[in-house]
């Protein structure tokens, strides 16, 4: 029987970030679909990963359909391209109605666009940078 708390996560990009999320969610009992246009990228998936991998280009609408984006609870777009992530997350949110769509965005100037379009963003550089700065106590925390 399926755990009712189990969620479906669609992850675009099986690089370091994408594979890390997939390798964490799948053993925790969630259904995971990972999409990457390079087959060798799936080598980063661990032996405990029991989800699906789809070799395809996430900028093709049909590939998002094949990944069952319409049934997803979470959608994470974590490719190296801001624009691909922005587009895929918006389509997930606005066309497929996914409740939470998260895009990895490097260019901080694009954050306001993401906010306007209802997309959550993560900026790995900024996250790590902030932690480093905090640990160095360069700035006083208020």
């Amino acid at each position, binding site marked *: 029987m399926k755990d009712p708390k189990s969620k479906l996560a669609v992850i675009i990009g099986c690089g370091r970030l994408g594979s890390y999320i997939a390798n964490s969610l799948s053993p925790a009992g969630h259904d995971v679909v990972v999409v990457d246009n390079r087959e060798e990228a799936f080598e980063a998936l661990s032996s405990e990963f029991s989800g699906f991998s789809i070799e395809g280009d996430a900028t093709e609408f049909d590939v998002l359909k094949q990944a069952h984006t319409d049934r997803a609870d979470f959608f994470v777009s974590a490719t190296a391209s801001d*624009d691909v992530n922005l587009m895929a997350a918006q*389509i997930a949110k*606005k066309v497929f109605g996914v409740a939470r769509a998260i895009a990895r965005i490097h260019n901080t100037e694009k954050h306001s*666009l993401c906010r306007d*379009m209802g997309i959550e963003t993560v900026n790995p550089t900024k996250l790590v940078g902030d932690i480093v700065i905090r640990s160095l106590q360069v700035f006083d925390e208020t």
Partner: protein
Amino acid sequence: MSRQMNILIVGGGKPVYFLTRDFSSKGHRVTIVNHDREECRRLTRKLPATVVHGEGSDPGVLKEAGASAADVVLAVTPHDETNLVICQLAELSYKVPRTLALVNDPEHETVFQKLGVTTAFSITQILVAMIEQRVSYREIVSMLPVGEGKVNLTEVVLDSGAPAAGKTLMEIGLPEDCLVAVILRDDRPLIPRGATMLKQQDRLVLMTLPENHREAIRLLTGTTG
């Protein structure tokens, strides 16, 4: 149509060159954004346009290219995602009233319009429409789907064998919900009425719906599906 516009084009290659040449010759002000430094140099030498080097989907580059003063933004890079972001930034951050995006994936036409792009067009879709309506390219000079393809604007040339030549519009009996909007005869426009006689070499601008398009073309040109 003669109002001067500020047109911002993002992309490269021959299409951008010819688009810019055409718009400039009509008195519009064109700014090009291109990410290839060498191509930017070449474009600057050959065209009376402002050329900005950079990634079009970078908000800072769009700002530098004067996006806030643009009347229309045309995003024609080879990447659908880049064209989407360019149009959205133009619309949301710089309040550009009209944005057009070239898309590779035909399904993105409707998707992009949902996401705020004024017009998304796919070469695939245009060619498929032309071929599926099975009309010969010779007679159909250009076709423009309007309102997400609910209405077609077509320019038709009456060849020597066209059954409509020598008849009045009334005699031809075009289907309902179909209109010959204008006739171009010897390069002069003529607004037709029912009693207007069509002649060989007339160019008709025809408004049709997808369901009566083929029938209308058949009655005018004799081309059958």
